[in-house]
Structures are given as C-alpha cells and as structure tokens.
C-alpha cells in the first residue's frame, strides 16, 4: 500500500534576516500510513512545524523528497487540512462564513457551502453560534471553528500544529476526545505536532521523536493502546506509563540539549 505521507532525506534551510543560513531539518525520514494518527514530539525549535509546512506544500524542501499518496508535493495540494497553533480563523467572518470558506474557495455554490457548513458546525457542537464573530467566542470554541473549517474539505491528511496548547487543561482533554471521535469517523491520516508527550501518546498510533535542531527523526514508537480511547483516563493505564517511560528516555536528552543551547544563547 502507498503510504499517505513519505519524507525521504528531507533537509530544509532558511535564510536568516542577517543573511546567514539556518538549517531547520536535516536528512529527515518519516512515513505515515493511510488512516494513521501520528504524533511528532521534540524540544522547542527542532523544526516540528517546518515538517508540517513541507507536507502541506506551504514551503518547498531544500533537499530530499516529500510524497503525499505517492506523488511529489508541488505547491498546495487538495486533500490537506491544517489546524494552526495560533488562531487562524478569519476574524472578520462569522462562524458560518469561516466554516463555509473552504468549499466556497473551491467553487461550491453559496447555498451548498452554507448547508455543509451548518452540518459541520453542529458536528463540532457549535450550533446556535453560527452568527458570532471569533472575538465573541472562547479559545476552545475558536479551535472548534478551526477544526470544522479544516474538516469540511474532507481532507485525506490532517496536519495539526500544537492546536490545543493555548487551552486550559479541562477544555483540552474535551477537545482531544472530540478530535479522536471526528478522526475515527473519517479515514484521514493525522500528523499532530506537540511538545507534550502525554498528549502525543494518548492520541496517537505512532510517536516520532525529533532531535534538537537541526531536526531529524531520532526514533519512532508504536503506541499499542486500545481504541476507542478516553484521553482523560487512558493515562492511568499501566501500559501508558511504560510507553511514556520508554519514549521519555529518548526525548529527555534532546530536551536537555535544546535547553543548554538556549541558556547559552541567553534565550532561556
């Protein structure tokens, strides 16, 4: 079977404003199967978000190959959903207009887009808020809008960049459960970037550990916890603790390396 996502020997360099070259990713290899829920963990600044930018086609790779469903990524492709870390819902559009944006941009008629948007708004539990503007919603509700906005396009690949990091702990585990339910109802592959190992394990089938920058895959672990899961409770299972300990051993060194570097550059 063709993997949903395949990165082979990918390197990504950026020009810094001062004219230097900054290597964000170095020789990175990663494979995600169709329908698989993958988490990517790593220390701050290791290029986790860059990985998503490469898969989505927002940024081209400097070296190496990025394939999505067997064909190389050239620019932004159809079938990709992206939930950003910061609020990226359009502040001048209502909830309904925000969710309907994707289909409208793809040429669906206004009335069809509206109908589909109403359906997705109710699926993420925002019925009754269709005419609100984002500033009138809580952080959790804005994330629901962002989720509906991405999922309405029926993505085969859903990229999520620390989507819940700004939420409080209770809202966060509610949102995580809802994400799992929505994902189970679709057939999408998910790449979920986070710095929170607990979140990574409780959500995913596979965890990739990225090294301190320039980032490359240090190891990947299969998470063999049963589904359906309740993220608030799965943390208490003995198997969860085992997996956590195993991955943490790997991750700890990278976190320390990154921390030492930050201290030296005075950023910590």
């Amino acid at each position: 079977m063709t993997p949903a996502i395949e990165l082979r020997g990918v390197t990504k360099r950026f020009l810094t404003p001062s004219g230097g070259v900054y290597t964000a990713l170095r020789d990175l290899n990663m494979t995600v199967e169709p329908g698989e829920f993958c988490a990517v963990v790593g220390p701050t600044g290791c290029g986790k978000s860059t990985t998503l930018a490469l898969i989505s086609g927002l940024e081209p790779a400097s070296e190496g190959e990025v394939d999505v469903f067997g064909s190389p990524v050239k620019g932004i492709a159809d079938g990709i959903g992206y939930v950003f870390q910061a609020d990226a819902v359009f502040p001048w559009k209502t909830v309904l207009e925000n969710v309907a944006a994707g289909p409208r941009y793809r040429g669906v008629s206004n009335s069809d887009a509206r109908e589909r948007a109403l359906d997705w708004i109710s699926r993420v539990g925002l019925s009754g808020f269709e005419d609100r503007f984002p500033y009138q919603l809580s952080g959790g509700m804005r994330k629901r809008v962002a989720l509906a906005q991405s999922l309405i396009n029926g993505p085969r690949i859903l990229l999520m960049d620390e989507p819940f990091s700004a939420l409080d702990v209770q809202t966060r585990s509610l949102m995580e459960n809802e994400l799992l339910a929505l994902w189970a109802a679709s057939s999408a592959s998910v790449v979920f970037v986070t710095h929170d190992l607990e979140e990574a394990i409780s959500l995913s089938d596979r965890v990739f550990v990225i090294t301190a920058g320039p980032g490359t895959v240090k190891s990947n672990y299969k998470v063999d916890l049963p589904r359906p899961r309740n993220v608030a409770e799965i943390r208490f299972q003995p198997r969860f603790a085992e997996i956590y300990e195993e991955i943490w051993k790997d991750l700890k060194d990278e976190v320390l390396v990154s921390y030492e570097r930050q201290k030296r550059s005075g950023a910590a």
Partner: protein
Amino acid sequence: MSASSVQAERPVSDLAARRKREAQRRRLTVAGLRLGLGVAILAGWEITTRLGWVDAFFWSQPSAVAAKLWLWLTQGTDLGPLWEQVLVTMEETVGGFVVGSILGVIFGVALGRSRLLSDVLGPYIKGANAIPRVVVGALFAVALGLDIRSKIATAAVLVFFVVFFNAFQGVREVDRNLIANARILGAGDRLLTTEILIPSALSWIVASLHTSFGLALVGAVVGELFGATAGLGELIYAAKNNFDTAGVFAGMALLAAMALVAEAFITALENRLIKWRPPVATETRI
C-alpha cells in the same frame, strides 16, 4: 438560604446602584464643565473686545460673528444663498474624498501585494509625499480651471497619500497565519486579495478616513482660495479682502460644523465596516 447569603447580596446591589449614581454624576460634571468652558471663552472674547483691550476690527467678536451668520442665513451672502456655498464646498470635499480614497486603496493594495511594484514606485511616492501638497492647488487651478474639478483634484491629492500609506501598511502587516490558512483552504491569488488582504487592511484604511476627510476639506478650501466663484473658502477669501473678520470667523464656524457632521457619518461607517472587532472602551475617545 442562610443568613450569610442574604447578607452577601445586599452590598452587591448597593454597590451597583452607587456606581450608577457616581457615573451619572460624572457625566453631569463633564457636561457642565464643557458648557462652562465654551461660555467662558466666548464671554472673555466678547468682553475684552467691548472694553477695547483687544481690537474688534482685527479679531472680531462673537456677537458680530453671530450677526454675520444670521445675515447670511436670512439674506444670503454676496456670492448667493448660504446653503449653496455650503453645498458647493461639501460637493468638492466629498468628491475629493471619494476619488482620493479609492485611488489610495487601489494603489496601496497593489503595492502592498507586489514587491517589485513597491520597490520601483517607492522613491517616487516618497518624493511626491515630501512636496507640501497644497501647492498643487495652484497647478490644478490653472490646468483644470476654476470650476469644481480643480478643487476635487486638490482634495483628492491630499486624501490619496494618507489612505495609500495606511492601505499599504495594512496589507503588509496581514497575519501570515491567516494567509497560510486561506491558501490551504483553497484560495488563489485573487481570493487572497479580496477575502484576506483587503478585509484585514480595512481597519487601517478606515482609521485613516477620519484624518483624510479633514484633509479633503482642507483641499477643497485651499482650492477655492486659489480661485473660485462659490464655496465657503471663497466666502472666507472675499471676507478677508473686505477686512471683514466676522465673515472669516463665520466661515470657519461653518467649516467646523461641516467637519463634525462628516465625522459622525464616518464613525457610523466605521462601525458598519468593522463590526467584527471587539468594541473598544469609549472612555478615552474624544
């Protein structure tokens, strides 16, 4: 239920009532002081000129200005009925404002979108901006004649630069995440402009409209000073030539009234165009 909850409730409602009374008292104080200040300034002006401390020939006096306004209102001005002069200046101002704003938005968005265009045109626009722009009124008076077109052109030039720089800045400072999100959702270049860049720049553009309407009025009046047959600027110019300072002040009062009315319209427009923004605290606004 218990005694404590009953006790806890009463002070809260008391507090709310007290706050309300305090706010009301403050509003009255402010209104009283405002009125008092206005009366004091006018009375001081009137008294000092009556006593001969200040020469009323050069500085006029409120009663003379009021009399002049009344005369204009009831018997018309030397140039014709008063409402005609107001209308002419209003037309020139609004015309210049609309033309300048539209051109400003178009150029601002275009240059904000295109690096090449902004690099090539940048120095020219900065250079043009450095010229004291009211002098172009003299050019337009010769080139376009003494009718409404030369005034609209002068006002439009003044408005253009303000709106242009705001639109340009607004487009340049659009949140990168919003652009990335729109592209992922399927927006091409054209949709990116109409759906993201312009709405996002709109709050900058609208904020500039407050300043630029004032400038449009300046442009219209300066245009009239360079040569006109009607309008409030021409009225002021004619009064000046007759050493009629009361007429100059009366014209200024009418211009101020016009600007305030327009300001109210622009605020209403602003609230309509950017209703998606959280309401700002109105306390500090003047």
